[in-house]
């Protein structure tokens, strides 16, 4: 049952990304481009997504997930350099291509060779990330 829910959620997420225009890299780059012909769409997508999710977080209080034992732990209050460095690197790739992980996967069937190349490179990046993370941790100790 959990697998069916995951399949349904993935499908809904993919439809949302397609309908909202987030699989169109020019709309994402258009939103990031505040000095160009600014495209506000992404702000509406974010707002539209955060509202139901905020309600969902509210509903978790004093309850249990339907098909699981517990909800995810509360977020850690520590920010840390991996979060800052990682998000900066991610933002650079996002700006360069107009793709983030969700839309990159959602557009695999119609994104052509370029889309497949992007996802392949992204997976390669994900493979080396744990090693890089350990390096960063060690640097913290050294400092």
């Amino acid at each position, binding site marked *: 049952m959990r697998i069916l*829910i*995951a*399949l349904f*959620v*993935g*499908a*809904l*997420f*993919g439809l*949302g990304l397609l309908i*909202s*225009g987030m*699989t*169109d890299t*020019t709309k994402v*780059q258009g939103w*990031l*481009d505040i000095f*160009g012909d600014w495209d506000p769409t992404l*702000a*509406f997508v*974010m707002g*539209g*997504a955060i*509202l139901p*999710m905020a309600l*969902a977080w509210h509903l978790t209080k004093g309850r249990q*997930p339907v098909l*699981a*034992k517990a909800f*995810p732990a509360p977020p*850690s209050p*520590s*920010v840390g350099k991996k*979060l800052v460095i*990682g*998000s*900066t690197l*991610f*933002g*650079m*790739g*996002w*700006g360069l*291509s*107009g*793709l*983030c*992980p*969700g839309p990159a*996967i959602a*557009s695999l069937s119609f994104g*052509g060779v370029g889309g497949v*190349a*992007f996802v*392949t*490179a992204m997976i*390669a*990046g*994900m493979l080396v990330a744990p090693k890089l993370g350990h390096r960063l941790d060690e640097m913290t100790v050294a400092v």
Partner: protein
Amino acid sequence: MQSDWIMGLLGGGLIGTAAAILLLVNGRIMGASGIIGGLVDGSGRSDWTERVAFLGGLIIAPGIVALMMGGANTQLTNNFAVIIVAGLLVGVGTRLANGCTSGHGVCGISRLSLRGIVATVFYIGAGGLTVIVFKHALGVI
């Protein structure tokens, strides 16, 4: 176009509803990079079937709708050097930061997580600066 923000709001609502269902039913956070990354580095071995099912839905549903609409276009650059570098940066960055637009952005901000908010400020800031430098200054993208 006016219809763009209506479709944005509507699509965003679907994205948020999807994340809400995964949280309330399966007790999971809908983060695209985390779901893929757990399969790539083996950290998500225990629930790999759910991850694969999620990714299956994520590929198939927009694929079918795009077919019915007579195709969709990502308008991705043709510059393969840019595509590869961007893909590597997105892969490394989202795993180091432990989240992307869906995990930190949608799921984090909606619970007022400090980490989610800080991550979002940094990836939007870096993305904006990258577009300024590579589009307006260098003309690469």
